[in-house]
């Protein structure tokens, strides 16, 4: 009921707001006369607030979670469950996946890459919580190529700017060793091969530490070293029965894949142990070889710190100083049964222990594959004259061109394929 308004026709005060669709109107309820009406169209200034919305924004595709992203997030959760990871890992991995998905490069990537990205997020989460998960495991679970995985992994670490700690070797040893099926007798595992888990774990850990100290682990894939160490630990706990078992058979018994480099790691580890054995007097006389040294691994590990110090001289100092011969072995404080006096008396000159070997990574001990001569000092300025004859040697004679064309035509006729060039 507007105040003060009167219909110009009949003079009544009964005016009502009665909009005709979108047009606002003031109408007299007695005679029906339209007193005032609103504007039908909007002005430009009004339309300032009603700007058009682009299609991509109207669909909300960048705010919503796309179907492939949803699928990826589901795969992340599934992978965490398959690996039996704690639930907080799941949330972290999902967060990483979402974070990665915000980058346009990842959003537009191929499905193969998105699959592998699932594994990368889980791996990063595990590494940050020191959960020992190898890339090999993830690639096997995702049926992915290690090359594709490595490319995506390096990219995502750089993209998200993450600090990913290294794989924790000790944890990996514990996990990997526990997966060997040797702790209970079964139809495939005879009783003499069954071993106590704790003893094997502790000895394997010591052997891996030994390998780490003697440069066998740096720069190499950790798993073959651990496989070799586990094998040696297992053998040494009951050598009389187990020396006959080979590395390949051992892995088959334990239901574990044998990584290719494991045999060469095994040889390297045995060589280190042999060098250490040379420093123990009661082992020197036994003239050990790679098989018999296994029986004494227990003793060698017990005194490993001293033995490493005595058996190896610092490779770096050696390279620096140009080599000095260490003649007499000064046997340190006796932690073993070796008596300093007795050893120097018992062994005649000829049987003196060998001068210590260099403690260097194996790649530095091997002779270089090819000797690269230092490049001759070149006096090229870049602006010399170029003789025509030199260039002409790279041009075909007309005869050669005809021959080439004939050969091409012949090949084309033979294969029946249109000439690609």
């Amino acid at each position, binding site marked *: 009921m507007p105040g003060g308004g009167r219909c110009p026709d009949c003079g009544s005060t009964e005016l009502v707001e009665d909009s005709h669709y979108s047009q606002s109107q003031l109408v007299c309820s007695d005679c029906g006369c339209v007193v005032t009406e609103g504007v039908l169209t909007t002005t430009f200034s009004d339309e300032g607030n009603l700007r058009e919305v682009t299609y991509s924004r109207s669909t909300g595709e960048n705010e919503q979670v796309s179907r492939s992203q949803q699928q990826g997030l589901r795969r992340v959760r599934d992978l965490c469950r398959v690996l*039996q990871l*704690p639930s907080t890992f799941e949330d972290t991995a999902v967060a990483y996946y979402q974070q990665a998905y915000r980058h346009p490069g990842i959003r537009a990537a191929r499905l193969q890459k998105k699959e592998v990205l699932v594994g990368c997020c889980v791996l990063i989460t595990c590494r940050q919580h020191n959960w020992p998960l190898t890339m090999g495991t993830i690639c096997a679970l995702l049926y992915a190529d290690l090359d594709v995985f490595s490319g995506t*992994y390096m990219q995502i670490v750089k993209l998200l700017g993450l600090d990913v700690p290294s794989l924790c070797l000790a944890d990996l040893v514990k*996990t990997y060793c526990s997966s060997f099926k040797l702790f209970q007798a079964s139809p495939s595992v005879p009783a003499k091969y069954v071993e106590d888990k704790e003893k094997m774990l502790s000895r394997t850990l010591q052997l891996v530490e030994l390998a780490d100290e003697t440069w066998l682990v740096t*720069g190499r*894939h950790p798993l073959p070293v651990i496989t070799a160490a586990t094998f040696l630990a297992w053998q040494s706990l009951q050598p009389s029965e187990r020396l006959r078992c080979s590395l390949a058979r051992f892995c088959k018994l334990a239901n574990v894949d044998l990584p290719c480099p494991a045999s060469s790691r095994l040889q390297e580890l045995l060589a280190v142990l042999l060098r250490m054995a040379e420093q123990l007097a009661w082992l020197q006389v036994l003239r050990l070889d790679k098989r018999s040294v296994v029986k004494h691994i227990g003793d060698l590990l017990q005194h490993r710190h001293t033995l490493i110090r005595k058996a190896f001289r610092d490779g770096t100092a050696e390279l620096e100083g140009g080599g000095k011969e260490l003649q007499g072995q000064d046997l340190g404080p006796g932690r073993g049964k070796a008596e300093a006096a007795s050893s120097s008396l018992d062994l005649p000159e000829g049987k003196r222990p060998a001068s210590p070997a260099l403690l260097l990574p194996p790649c530095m001990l091997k002779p270089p594959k090819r000797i690269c001569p230092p490049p001759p000092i070149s006096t090229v300025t*870049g602006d010399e004259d170029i003789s025509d004859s030199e260039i002409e040697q*790279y041009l075909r004679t007309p005869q050669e061109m005809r021959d080439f064309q004939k050969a091409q035509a012949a090949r084309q006729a033979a294969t029946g394929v249109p000439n690609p060039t």
Partner: protein
Amino acid sequence: MDQNNSLPPYAQGLASPQGAMTPGIPIFSPMMPYGTGLTPQPIQNTNSLSLLEEQQRQQQQQAQQQAQQQQQQQQQQQAVAAVQQSTSQQAAPGASGQTPQLFHSQTLTTAPLPGTTPLYPSPVTPMTPITPATPASESSGIVPQLQNIVSTVNLGCKLDLKTIALRARNAEYNPKRFAAVIMRIREPRTTALIFSSGKMVCTGAKSEEQSRLAARKYARVVQKLGFPAKFLDFKIQNMVGSCDVKFPIRLEGLVLTHQQFSSYEPELFPGLIYRMIKPRIVLLIFVSGKVVLTGAKVRAEIYEAFENIYPILKGFRKTT
């Protein structure tokens, strides 16, 4: 490849995420006492302040060195005089007032250290008045060798790759595999990719001058094949160098202390990938002590990067 089919059967305690590691404070324990001015300092050079200082110094290299030498001599004389005074005071009671010889005979110099090119000055920290005797040369003495130079040049005209492949002996062209002619010359031993737009990439040379000469030879071959080839915008895009520090390196230790620059994944690659910020060079560091440096546009960047990394690597030398 190797497979670890084991799934962790037990749940480990939930450690806090290791990802939030504190940025690595360079833990650098020098083997030999380093002087204040002569040794390249590790990582600290990446500070933005010293960046500007470094650039300024490189620009005014000659003048500064001379001025500094004069300055040092003055300071040396001052220091010697001061010491003489103090020692004479101290020694007054008994000694014959001998001046300590050690300050005299040491010549502190910021002349280019042996083993480095004159283009690149040794990074000098601000000279302090008190400069005790230091060994003059703290540089590594190792010069990285250039192994590969990649350069590009614009020949300035459209090319018909089929004709080039037909008329040149040293060319191969397989359009299904790659859309460019691959041409090789014997001296300098290089390879070029020649595209139909007239652009060319030249790889394999061992020095900048050789790369330029090789590119000119390729342009000349294309000219002789009948195209109006020019030699425009020759630019060196990448330089790769390598050297050997001759001692083994504990890569695991290096990645711990320099986490924000290093990437070491032994499961993927045996070397450590170190992304240096200043100069912007990527170094591949291997356990044998071999170092590959790449990503440089000029030779000086490679030398500078190596001088920066050498003290860091020396810090990881001791094993037990």
